C-alpha cells in the first residue's frame, strides 16, 4: 500500500479543477448544474460546488446519483454495493451538466450515469470531471476535467479515504489486490 495523495495534494487538485471548470462555465452560470456520482463523487462534487458558489456568489443546482440500477454487470459481478438514493430535483433539460466522480477507470460508471441522466431529460451538454484518471478505459468515454493522471495496472486498486466518510484526514491510497 502506498499513499498516492495527501490532504494538501487533494485540496490543491480540487482548487485547480474548480478553476478550469469555472473558466468553461462562467459565461453561462445560469444554465450550469453539477451532479455527483455516489459515493466519493458526491463528496468531491460538493467541494467543487462550495468553491464555485463562494467564488461566484451564485447558487448552483446540485444533484447526486447512484448508478447501480444502470450497471451492465448485474448477475456477473458478485461484489456490487448496495444502492444509494438518486436525487436530482432540478430540471436537467437544456442545462450544461457537469458529472463528477472520484476515479475514472473503465468508463463504465460514467456510461451508466449518462444513460440515467438522459432518461430524466435532455441536457444541452454533459461533461465529466474526476479527481483521478487511472487509464485502462474499456469504453470510448472521456473526462474533460482531470485532477491527476495515474498509470495503473488492472490488479491495482485506488481508494479515496475522504474526511466526509472516515472522519479522518483525507488521503488517497493505492495497493495491489
Amino acid at each position, binding site marked *: 500500500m502506498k499513499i498516492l495523495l495527501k490532504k494538501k495534494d487533494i485540496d490543491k487538485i480540487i482548487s485547480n479543477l474548480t478553476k478550469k471548470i469555472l473558466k468553461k462555465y462562467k459565461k453561462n452560470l445560469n444554465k450550469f448544474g453539477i451532479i455527483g456520482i455516489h459515493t466519493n463523487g458526491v463528496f468531491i462534487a460538493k467541494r467543487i460546488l462550495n468553491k464555485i458558489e463562494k467564488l461566484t456568489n451564485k447558487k448552483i443546482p446540485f444533484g447526486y446519483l*447512484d448508478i*447501480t*440500477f*444502470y*450497471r451492465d454487470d*448485474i*448477475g456477473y459481478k*458478485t*461484489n*456490487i*454495493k*448496495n*444502492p*444509494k*438514493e*438518486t*436525487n436530482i430535483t432540478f430540471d436537467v433539460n437544456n442545462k450544461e451538466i457537469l458529472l463528477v466522480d472520484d476515479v475514472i477507470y473503465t468508463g463504465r460508471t460514467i456510461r451508466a450515469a449518462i*444513460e440515467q441522466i438522459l*432518461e*430524466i431529460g435532455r441536457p444541452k451538454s454533459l461533461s465529466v470531471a474526476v479527481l483521478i484518471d487511472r487509464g485502462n478505459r474499456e469504453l470510448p468515454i472521456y473526462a474533460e476535467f482531470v485532477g491527476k493522471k495515474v498509470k495503473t495496472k488492472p490488479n491495482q486498486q485506488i*481508494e479515496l*479515504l475522504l474526511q466526509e*466518510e472516515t472522519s479522518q484526514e483525507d488521503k488517497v491510497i493505492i495497493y495491489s489486490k
Partner: protein
Amino acid sequence: MLKEKKFKHKHLLGLQYLSKEDIEIILDTAKPFKNLFTRSIKKVPTLRGRSVVLLFYEPSTRTRTSFELAAKRLSADTVNISVQTSSVQKGESLIDTAKTLEAMKADFIVIRHSHAGAPHILSQNVSSSIINAGDGFHEHPTQGLLDIFTIKEKKGRIKDLKVVILGDILHSRVARSNLWGLTKLGAKVVLCGPPTLIPYGIDKIFPEVEIEYNLDKAIKNADVINILRVQFERQLEHLFPSVREYSLLYGMNKERLKIARNDVLILHPGPMNRGIEITTDVADSLNSVINQQVTNGVAVRMAVLYLLSLNS
C-alpha cells in the same frame, strides 16, 4: 472503506429465514426504487433480458399485478400462468410444471400456492430463483416486507413500536410474515382476535409476543394496527358465531381509533371487507396508509427481485 453487509440469498421463501440485516438491506434498497416512481420514466434497465414467471395457484390481483409491474419496471420480461387454463388441469405436478419453466430458462418463479412449503419444494428442485408470493397459512414475505417498509417510512423506526396484528391470525400468512419480520426488528407485537382464530402454540414460537383477546385493551397506545381480512373462503362459519358479532367485537371503527395513539397507522393487506373488519371511515381516514402500502409493494418487490438477481 467501510465493509457493507451483503444480501446472500437466491430465493425468498419467508422472513423466517432472513436475518435482521437481510431485512434491513431489502428495506434500504426499496427506497431508491420508490424514488423512481416520481419520474416520468419509472423504468430502469437493471434486469434487462431476465424473465420472471408468475405462477399463481390461488386468486390474486394486487400481489400478481404488483410483481408484474415490479419486474417490468426493472425491464425484465414477465409471463403470467393462469393455472385454470394450464397443464395443471391435465394433472401435471407442481415440480413438473416448475421444471418445464426452468427448461425455458425462467430466471425467477414467483409462486402462490394453497399448500405451505410449495415454494421450498421448488427451490430444492429447480435452478430458478424462487419467490414465495403466499403459501398456505405459512408466509407471504413480500407483504410482510411492504408492511414493515410502510411502517418504517412513516414512523422512522420499527424498534419498540407497539404493533397490533388484528383478526384472523390462524389463517393468515400475512400475520406470520409480519410476526417474523417485526420481532426480528425489535417491535412489540400484540396479537388480537377471537381465541378460535389465534393459532394454538404461537406463544411458543414467539415468546416475546403478547396475546390479547380484548380489542380495546390491545390497541391502547398502539403505534400501528395491521388489520387482517376475514377469510370467508376458509370456512370460518364455525370459528365465530356470526359476522355481526365479529364486527362488533373485532371490527375497527372510528370510536375505537381514539383508544390508540393519535398518530396510529392503520394497515390492511387487502382486499378489505368494508364494514366487517374495518369501517369505511377508518379505511379512508388520515391514519390509513392502505394505499401507500400498495405503492410501496411495487418498490419492495423491485428490491427483492434485484437483490436475488445478484445471487442467481
